[in-house]
């Protein structure tokens, strides 16, 4: 700014030539403009590409599944047989296993995840304790799922075996615990999934709880509420939709989780009410049979299963994203 007076006092007969040059380039459509235009086109094209990947994926999988879709129709979803040599395929045991293992995971992970979110977002602990706790729980999400599965086979299954035996010996009159445990089980898969979705629930619920206005908290405390009365009477109702969104995202993750579940669920095509029984999930059968699948209805049926899983997780994820977005816009 100091030498602006110099510039204004400069004789107008000598304009800076370089500026003139680029100005004329702008108006005449010189190389710089073409560069910018080309850049714009490329950026749009790549954004469109990202957009198309999802649709391309849906179409390709649907296209490959078409022989099976035409052959079995919607009856595929309720079919109970999976007979490769005779080419009779039904998805019900896999859908059942996927839903049940994810349900166990949610039932276990929601209370634990909420506890972590509350303990690390309220002033229970000094921040030099609570932020490392939140960090350690979030770090759990970065462990590759195959390594969680390896740990599941060699540590979690032996650890849960006595608990499974206890449930079977004492509560076998309840259908949920009515089969002899053998190690791998639907219950183990549920526990492994709970460990894997715990960080999602904890991290998002924590953000939601931290976003609850301080005034609400103070108001409840001023009326004489204790800390936990404030939590149950004010904080949880205020952040309810956000916590539902977090759990929905976690459900999406649980439905599609492959490796860890495949390694501990036992991979047996059965539908049993017992959680101690072996099971099978859609991702697990894809992981086990895809590489060896022959042409024809077998591969078509696997593609059909993949398509069902894709649609299922798409619905769950889209509703979770919309829930979080609605919440975000309401807050603004």
């Amino acid at each position, binding site marked *: 700014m100091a030498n602006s007076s110099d510039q204004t006092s400069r004789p107008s007969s000598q304009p800076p030539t370089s*500026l003139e040059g680029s100005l004329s380039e702008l108006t005449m459509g010189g190389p710089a403009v073409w*560069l910018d235009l080309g*850049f*714009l086109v490329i*950026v*749009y094209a*790549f*954004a469109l*590409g*990202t*957009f198309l*990947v*999802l649709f*391309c*994926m849906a179409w390709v*999988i649907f*296209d*490959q599944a078409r022989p099976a879709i035409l052959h079995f129709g919607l009856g595929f979803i309720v079919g109970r047989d999976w007979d490769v040599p005779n080419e009779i395929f039904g998805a019900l045991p896999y859908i059942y296993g996927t839903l049940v293992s994810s349900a166990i995971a949610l039932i276990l992970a929601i*209370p*634990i995840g909420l506890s*972590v979110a509350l*303990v690390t977002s309220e002033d229970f602990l000094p921040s030099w304790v609570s932020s490392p706790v939140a*960090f*350690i729980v979030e*770090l*759990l999400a*970065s*462990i*590759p*799922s*195959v*390594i*969680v599965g*390896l*740990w599941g*086979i060699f*540590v979690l299954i032996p650890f849960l075996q006595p608990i499974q035996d206890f449930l079977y010996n004492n509560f076998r009159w309840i259908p949920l615990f009515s089969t002899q445990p053998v190690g791998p089980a639907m219950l183990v898969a549920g526990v492994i999934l709970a460990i894997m979705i715990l960080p999602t629930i904890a991290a998002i619920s924590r953000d939601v709880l931290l976003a609850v206005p301080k005034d609400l908290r103070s108001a409840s405390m001023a*009326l*004489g*509420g*204790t800390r*936990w009365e404030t*939590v149950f009477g004010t904080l949880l109702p205020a952040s309810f939709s956000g916590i539902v969104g977090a759990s929905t995202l976690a459900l999406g993750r649980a439905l*599609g989780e*492959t*490796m860890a579940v495949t*390694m501990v669920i036992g991979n047996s095509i059965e539908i049993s009410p017992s959680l101690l029984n072996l099971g099978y999930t859609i*991702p697990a059968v*894809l*992981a086990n049979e*895809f590489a060896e699948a022959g042409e024809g209805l077998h591969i078509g049926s696997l*593609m059909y299963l*993949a398509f069902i*899983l*894709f649609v299922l*997780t*798409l619905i769950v*994820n*889209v509703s979770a*994203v919309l829930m979080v977005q609605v919440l975000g816009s309401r807050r603004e």
Partner: protein
Amino acid sequence: MHSFNSDATPDPLTSSSVIDLRDPLSLGRVIFTNVMNFVAFSLTGLALLPLFAILLEILRKGLPNLTWQTLVSLPAAVGEEGVANGFANAIQGTILMVGIASLISIPFGVLTAIFLSEFGKGSKVAATVRFVATVLSGVPSIVVGVFAYAIIVLAPACKGFSAIAGSVALAVIMLPIVVLTTEEALKLVPVPQRLASSALGCGSFQTTFRVVVAGALPGITTGVLLAVARAAGETAPLIFTALFSQTWPEGLKCNSPTPSLSVMIYNYASSPFQEQNRLAWTASVVLVGIVLLVNILSRFAIRSLKTR
């Protein structure tokens, strides 16, 4: 909310039954507070257990066998004694496939992020693309594997299991992570810097690359590293695209199964041979080491970028 003012008279100042704030809480409320404290703290303690249990077990079972030889030699045949046993081929395969996946997904992702934060900002198109990227990040990795299988392994042009098929699957996994983290990084560059660049006569190409991307480079690098760490640990998309082999990877050749660390851990974990189980644990040390290192470092990097 509580029953203590139900018997209070309308004018508490003159009444004798005024609430004495020094009264201790009723027994029920004290018990409730303590029980809930206990429940919340024990569940939080429970949540911390798995990470430590996993890390401890990996170090206990994997570290004793981690020698230079395991990192540079091929897997020995089962039952062979006194031969160098390792997983160098799997390390090479993982680097190869993650490398190609990065070459595909980084330009794609960064340019999409530039669109989201620079050109399409606030528009419906950008909101849609961002939404699709978010949804894409939630697609199960096994479904991405099925997609890569359908377009590459089944394709007549490059039929069979190959490193290319595995790389394409990993690229699709990485793409949404790169897009979303890069957009966050670009948004942190102050708007006045863009205006200053435009005022000096720079076009959109120059402004974007010389000012915005240059300024956001640390953030973009962090996001890319996170995506690389995620891809290195993925198994499901590789299991029937790259498959596995006991020999060295053969580059980009079609119809040549390519080994990777994650698929090796999966195969050897359920193997009946103990030496293969041991190798799985040792490979886990390498994989978890890389993944955790990247995640912890990037966490601190992101924090320092945001506070800067």
